[in-house]
């Protein structure tokens, strides 16, 4: 990858342009890491880790609280699911049910059951389910 730095004193804030023949997953990941507003803190016991948004597959609630899942495992999150929905970038994360928010960039397949249940396959083969009540949010998030 060719990296070029150009200094322009007149610019009020830094500007980054990425030129490529097509949008690859690596570029998507780079964009996600550059545009992430606030880092997400994931907890494993007393240990805290900063998790890049691009690495997060989903946030979900279970009996104990809210967790996030990455390819390397699950972490606890201190925020509530509705707070995360407000905080996360709308074009990257979408609420798909009462208990789940998924990273759009990690959706690898979408299937529709005969009863209208939507099955999403995430990176690594993780299956999550959504109902038609949330289809509007999904459509808005992807720009349909």
């Amino acid at each position, binding site marked *: 990858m060719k990296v070029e730095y150009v200094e322009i004193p007149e610019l009020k804030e830094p500007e980054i342009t990425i030129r490529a023949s097509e949008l690859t997953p690596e570029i998507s990941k780079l964009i996600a890491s550059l545009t992430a507003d606030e880092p997400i803190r994931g907890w494993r016991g007393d240990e805290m880790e900063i998790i890049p948004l691009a690495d997060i597959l989903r946030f979900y609630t279970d009996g104990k609280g809210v967790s996030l899942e990455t390819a390397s495992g699950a972490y606890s999150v201190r925020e509530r699911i509705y707070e995360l929905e407000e905080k996360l970038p709308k074009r990257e994360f979408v609420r798909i049910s009462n208990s789940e928010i998924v990273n*759009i960039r990690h*959706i*690898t*397949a*979408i*299937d*529709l*059951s*005969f*009863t*209208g*249940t*939507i099955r999403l396959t995430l990176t690594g083969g993780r299956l999550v389910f959504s*109902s*038609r*009540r949330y*289809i509007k949010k*999904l*459509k808005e998030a*992807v*720009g*349909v």
Partner: protein
Amino acid sequence: MTEEKYSLRQHIIRGGIGGALGLLILPRYGEMLNSIIIDAGEGGTPALIISCILYFVIGALAGIATMPFADTGKELVIRSVIHYALTSLAFSALCLVNGWNRGRWDTLFFFIGVLAVFYLTIWLARWIAWLGEISDIREKLGIKPKRSPLGIVEALPYAVLVLLTSFIVSCAGYALDRTGWVGSIITALIIPAGVFWAGVVLGKHNGFAPAFIVLAELAAAAGFGITIFALHLNLGFGWGAAIPAIAALIGNLAGFALGKIKEKRAE
């Protein structure tokens, strides 16, 4: 009263009144409902009153017919089955009161079977609309599966819809006017219109699918053929047999063009 309950009541009242008005309008179109009028004329007022109530009930059930589809999964199946059971009961009572089944139970079961096919048709039409939304989302995410040769897999649900519609519409056309031209016109207009709509939706979401033209023609002929066979009608296909294929072609091309226009606008 919650908003949901208020909406439910409004749908029931509007649908019920519409159903009751149907009693006044429908008998003009044939012998189907003549028994009610004859009964009323010969002092059979109770039959008319019961019919009015049953028409209101059927209208009210039609008014809330979209509600089972508001949910997904198990709720959708349960609500649909309950709605179908209630409609079947009301419709069976109407048939028995007015003697539409001419005292034959097999005829009554045939009517209930046609009603089941009608429910299946509505459900499939809804499912196809949902599938279109999913197809658009897949497209935006760049995860749309590769199209099958001639679009045969993509066209299949639409072809099944055409088959069901063709059967229901030809049955309804026959029931409304057994010998005259009203039924024929309804059949000749609604089936091609349904095929055209299916072609537009298919073309919009999946592009031009040559397989649909053949499948739609076969499905429309099969639906019409099943009606002829089931009702022992002495009818042939005639010159109009190719109309579904033409409607499928025009509809599919129109949908394809609409999809392209939408894509260009989005760019």
